[in-house]
């Protein structure tokens, strides 16, 4: 069973509620669910949609299938009717949509809502019931979902929603076309509790688990979800959340808070990250541990604000004048995002460096079912800290940038002991005084860069998936994971020749591991959500190994398994 429902409509028509309800209903029915959101940069009108995929197996990607469309307006019919798989249907209210197609299945959402729920607002529940009826689902899943959702509003609201859903459910069963064949097979749910989360929420939860104590941000799509999630939990989770006047201030605030002793998180998107470039280097030279999350969207400039892309990779690696160590990671799913953020905080503290986590709109907004996050096994490593006694005994002799074997100096937090903390964005000596002498400069510069080598050694190996003795490697990073994985499956159905090699730790790469992982294939295909194959360039600059083919996407839409299959064509060089 692998089934996709699209809910389409204008911004402001409440399609998010229907979408979310369907996701949860699918989860209740025991499926693995994956749902993406496609929305325009406007608040009302336009055409937005939710794509919800139910599967018996765990899935990490949307795909190109489309079995049912819930169309809230006429545009949605037009937009999606050609995507429909054979046998699929478009559900709509005859009062909203007049379309001429045998695929249309009318359900009077509004009228049934008024009749059974007392108000048009219940139309969402009617639609939900109708979908369930069509697919042969169990109304109990819907009931349980509606109870969860409306519990706090009182039993009357719950009951009205239930009646409405039942009306839609029964309408669908009664009227569904004879030849409609799609069918549910409810999966017996495991006892383990599961979650439905999107990437933004998972990142927020990860940051809280990691002991984040300060977040500063200026709103920017698609990173705002992270900020708002944490803001709404600031009291229960001991996090100070500050809305900054601009992104420059946001990062500098984070750097201040981090030097004061608080684990600090700064979420943003590419344009905001651009404004943070100067601050990034300040974190670099002051050896400040800080986590920046850049949720990518298509650039340059304002670009396509609500869409997805993977085009900030080389920028994230090279942002800022001069040279200093940093770590760049790119998780690909909510569960991976949760643990990546924890690791980001630990690595930031261990190495006393800025860590950049690259997500994107696709990761931020895609909902996925997952097992509950395991807060118990989260380990906190705050790195080299002097305890109060050690710090007091040093007093004015404490050296923030002490030269050490591994390049890492013990930290103190100003005002927490008698140790005197001093650092600066100028080149400095061990004590944090501004210097200009060549030898002192070299010593501190090498101290910092030394960490790069250690970071390289500790770089996580890529994930591998697919055929044992494959000759084709699909090389990917970040949010394309699920699509690449399924593409590998599709290829291997016709002969076991393909393997996914997927990177989470992006920079610094360990050339030896990379060569080991990708060196042995006849075909190396870069799969990236950008136009210039940025990760492929990075690999080549580190290993000399080039790709033989490229599957790139840069129209702001996520890469799907089918997109990969369709685009694996001949051709070595990039067109530019």
């Amino acid at each position, binding site marked *: 069973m692998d089934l996709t429902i699209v809910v389409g409509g204008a911004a402001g028509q409440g399609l998010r509620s229907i979408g979310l309800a369907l996701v949860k209903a699918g989860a209740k029915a025991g499926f693995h669910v994956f749902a993406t959101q496609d929305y325009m940069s406007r608040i009302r009108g336009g055409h937005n949609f939710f794509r919800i995929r139910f599967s018996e197996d765990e899935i990490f990607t949307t795909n190109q299938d489309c079995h049912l469309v819930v169309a809230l307006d006429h545009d949605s019919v037009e937009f999606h009717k050609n995507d429909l798989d054979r046998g699929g249907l478009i559900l709509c209210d005859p009062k909203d949509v007049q379309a001429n197609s045998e695929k249309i299945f009318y359900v009077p959402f509004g009228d049934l809502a008024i009749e059974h729920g007392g108000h048009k607002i219940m139309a969402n529940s009617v639609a939900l019931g109708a979908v369930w009826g069509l697919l042969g689902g169990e109304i109990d899943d819907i009931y349980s979902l509606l109870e969860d959702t409306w519990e706090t509003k009182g039993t009357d609201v719950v009951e009205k929603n239930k009646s409405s859903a039942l009306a839609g459910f029964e309408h669908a069963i009664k009227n569904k076309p004879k030849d409609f064949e799609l069918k549910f097979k409810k999966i017996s749910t495991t006892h383990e509790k599961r979650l439905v989360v999107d990437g933004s929420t998972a990142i927020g939860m990860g940051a809280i688990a990691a002991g984040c104590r300060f977040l500063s941000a200026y709103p920017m799509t698609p990173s705002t979800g992270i900020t708002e999630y944490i803001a709404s939990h600031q009291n229960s*989770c*001991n996090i*100070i959340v500050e809305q*900054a006047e601009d992104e420059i201030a946001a990062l*500098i605030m984070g750097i201040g808070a981090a030097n004061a002793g608080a684990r600090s998180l700064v979420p943003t998107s590419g344009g905001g990250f651009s404004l943070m470039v100067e601050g990034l280097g300040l974190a670099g030279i002051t050896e400040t541990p800080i986590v920046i999350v850049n949720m990518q969207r298509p650039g340059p400039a304002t670009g396509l604000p609500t869409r997805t892309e993977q085009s900030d990779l080389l920028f994230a690696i090279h942002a800022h004048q001069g040279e200093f160590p940093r770590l760049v990671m790119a998780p690909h799913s909510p569960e991976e995002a949760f643990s990546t953020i924890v690791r980001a905080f630990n690595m930031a503290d261990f190495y006393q460096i800025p860590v950049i986590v690259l997500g994107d709109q696709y990761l931020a907004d895609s909902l996925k079912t997952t097992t509950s996050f395991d807060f118990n096994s989260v380990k906190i490593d705050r790195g080299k800290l002097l305890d109060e006694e050690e710090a007091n005994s040093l007093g004015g002799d404490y050296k923030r940038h002490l030269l050490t074997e591994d390049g890492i100096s013990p930290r103190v937090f100003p005002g927490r*002991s008698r140790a005197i903390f001093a*650092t*600066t964005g100028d080149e400095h000596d061990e004590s944090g005084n501004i210097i200009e002498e060549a030898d002192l400069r070299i010593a501190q510069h090498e101290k910092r860069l030394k960490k790069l080598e250690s970071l390289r050694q500790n770089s996580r190996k890529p994930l591998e998936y697919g055929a044992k003795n494959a000759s084709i490697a699909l090389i990917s990073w970040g949010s394309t994971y699920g699509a690449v994985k399924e593409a590998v499956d599709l290829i291997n159905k016709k002969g076991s020749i393909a393997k996914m090699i997927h990177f989470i730790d992006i920079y610094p790469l360990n050339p030896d591991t990379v060569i080991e992982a990708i060196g042995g294939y006849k075909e190396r295909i870069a799969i990236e959500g950008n136009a210039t194959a940025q990760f492929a360039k990075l690999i080549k600059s580190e290993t000399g190994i080039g790709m033989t083919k490229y599957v790139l996407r840069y129209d702001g839409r996520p890469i799907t398994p089918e997109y990969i299959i369709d685009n694996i064509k001949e051709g070595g060089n990039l067109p530019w």
Partner: protein
Amino acid sequence: MVTVNDYPLSETAWCPGCGNFGIRLALRDALVELGLAPHQILLVSGVGQAAKLPMYMSGNSFTGLHGRSLPAAQAFKLVNPALKIFVFGGDGDGYAEGGNHLLHAIRRNVDLTYIVHNNQVFGLTKGQASPTSLTGYVGGITPQGTRMPGFNPIPFAISMDIGFVARSFSGDKDHLVAMIKAASKYNGFALIDVLQPCVTFNKVNTYKWYKDRVYYLPDDYDPTDKELAFRKSQEFGERIPLGIIYQSNRPAYTTAIDNPTDDPVAFRPHNPADFTFLNKENEI
């Protein structure tokens, strides 16, 4: 007890005769009189001649980027309210590159003392006009003189109902000590604009130029009278008033979470397992 011996004066890279020396001395004396020890304070600054001050003083310090002292300082204070924070920078640092942060720091009103060494010139980069340079000032990029009026931070601050704003002069240590102490005692964002001669580059606004113009606000001056303050604050010509020009005593900014001095949020123990409850919200 804190004494001047806790604040030895180190060698500087300032020019002999520079107004910055006066500010440093006044700061030292104010800190001693306030009974603040070097490990209790945090000196935050940007980049410029003025911004080097923390390098030449004892005390915790964070010398960041040109124009970016205030966001760092505010965050330090928010996560550790026990710190006594003093922020330093030039007129270029604070009013040009850092203008937006000043605007919003005044609105936010985090408890800090912000001292601007206003020499009406970009000193470290060798004499270009700054926002406070008066119309006609000749600098390297404006060889025919700037064509903008000099920025006056005092009415600017008053217009946003700042909690505390004063003007002082690096040539009068006692006055400056008094201003720093008063600013530090005010629980909120306090701005002191200090007239500071740059003997090397600013040949217009010299010691003499300032001395000829400055005068002290009379004892009966009421700094809580906003309209009066607005009027007074605009004097920057033949006469320049010194003193606390406006004081609204707005309450200091605090975060949305309880964050007392003795139990700052930043240092509360953390156990990841305590947050398992977050799963609940997203469970099916």
